[in-house]
């Protein structure tokens, strides 16, 4: 099982490496959005920085997820179908998407702090939240993007289906980031972390249970 998962992840990385323009496009999207934010806001407050960061992150990750499943053509589905167990495939997808999103979040943070300000004082807390957030958003959006790619107008559908599902995660992330940037003095941050992890586990578990019934046509 682990062997299979590693194999699929390697395969995904290879595919992305061959289509460099695709991942470069997502990174460029992130940089361009940050530049727009810098131009629009001139002087940005810490609270707005937090909000803008997570809004940009949602859109960057939606963009990247559409890319991730658009490349799964029907023929490739058949190929995977003969090779792997659906649970392995969805686990591998979640792991790959999590690291993909974590990478994008780091890129976004790097450019946000370069162009505007860097309000984050508690770096471990912030990166912990980034990782758990990437995991939750990765699991949820990879599940929803399977649904969305089957429908018409998949870009809009992906946004409509996943944004309401992401709201609890994003609210928790916003609270943790506010604590990490020192504008919120809250002692219950560990509760928020546990809760975030619980939502992540819930969405991973649901994806694993529901994916097998989704992927075969």
């Amino acid at each position, binding site marked *: 099982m682990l062997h299979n998962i590693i194999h699929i992840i390697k395969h995904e990385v290879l595919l992305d490496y061959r289509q460099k323009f695709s991942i470069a496009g997502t990174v460029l999207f992130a940089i361009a959005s940050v530049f727009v934010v810098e131009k629009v806001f001139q002087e940005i407050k810490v609270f707005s920085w937090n909000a803008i960061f997570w809004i940009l992150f949602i859109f960057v990750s939606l963009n990247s997820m559409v890319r991730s499943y658009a490349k799964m053509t029907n023929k490739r589905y058949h190929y995977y179908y003969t090779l792997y167990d659906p649970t392995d495939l969805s686990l591998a997808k979640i792991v790959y998407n999590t690291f993909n999103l974590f990478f994008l979040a780091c890129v976004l943070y790097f450019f946000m702090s370069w162009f505007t300000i860097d309000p984050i004082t508690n770096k471990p807390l912030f990166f912990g939240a980034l990782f758990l957030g990437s995991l939750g958003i990765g699991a949820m959006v990879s599940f929803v993007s399977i649904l969305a790619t*089957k429908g018409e107008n998949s870009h809009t559908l992906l946004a409509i289906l996943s944004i309401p599902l992401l*709201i*609890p995660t994003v609210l928790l992330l916003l609270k943790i980031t506010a604590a990490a940037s020192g504008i919120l003095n809250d002692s219950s941050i560990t509760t928020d972390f546990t*809760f975030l992890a619980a939502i992540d586990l819930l*969405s991973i578990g649901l994806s694993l249970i529901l994916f097998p019934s989704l992927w075969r*046509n």
Partner: protein
Amino acid sequence: MNIKKSWWKWLCIPLGLYVLLVGMLVPLKPGITSIDNFNATAGQPFSVHVKGYNSNFDIAENLKAFLRLDSSFLIQHALIKVNGPTDLQLQFDIPNFLPTSEDYATGTLILDNEVDGPSILPAVIRLEQANINVQDGNNLWSKTSLNLASVEKGFKFPHRNILNETIRNTFFHVAIWFAMFFLLILSLINSIQYLRLRSFEKDINASSYAEVAILFGLIGIATGSVWAKYTWGAFWISDVKLNMSAVALLIYVAYLILRASIQDIDSRARLSAAYNIFAFVAMIPLIFVIPRMTDSLHPGNGGNPALGGEDLDNRLRMVFYPAIILWSIIGYWLSNLNIRVKKITEQLISKK
């Protein structure tokens, strides 16, 4: 119509009449609507004009009024004048010192008579003192426990300040959301069964229940919004429970959009069943966990009691539980009609 088979539809009529008539016509217990003076000073007389609600000050003979601090200290009225059945003029002689080491205290106004029973207006009067003397304060305020008249005449709903008559909305706003959860659970069960059995009928059931549940959700939000206007002062406030409910509705509206955007019948059924399960599980933290973690005005969250304690007394329960059954049956009925319409439409399409 076969009465034995559709007995639950007939049950709707007495239940509906009961909920509407009893729920809307039973009077509230007497209470205090408003007072005109909120500030008292130690050592001075404090006179206040009290407006009662459903009260009978003119008939009652043994009128008493108390000003209570904390749970133990109180003084009785010095002067009481009845202007009408719901109109009262009171005067208290506030002692020179308050039984507290702070320069102010909060007082509760209690009215009592043998016809209406006690009416309470909690923590509205602010008492101030210039000099602090706890010892004298303790002596000047009596520490006797209150012997209030216990009047249990007739079937009446409790009178709560701020809520007043809107307490009847419990039978609509709260009960309709209960019915919505009942329908959503039915929809979830049908979606799970679809994924296991792949029977097309289950898909029609799941979508029909979900549609009626969304309708109930919208009605629940509308009734809650009106309730909020008359208790909190605005139709919509930025409260965690309200926001999360709106998000939960968005998730389910997205379910309808997902269904509408897929043309192929089989993949529509499969994908929407999976999304329905995901949506239901995602909704549980939204509505039941997050609002309880933060402060909220909505009952049942952030330390506010909901179905329990003083808010839902046994008389309200006697209408509230039938109301839940009533709205659940109506929702189930509506969904069944919806299912039948969909099945007939499918048949007509396949005949063409």
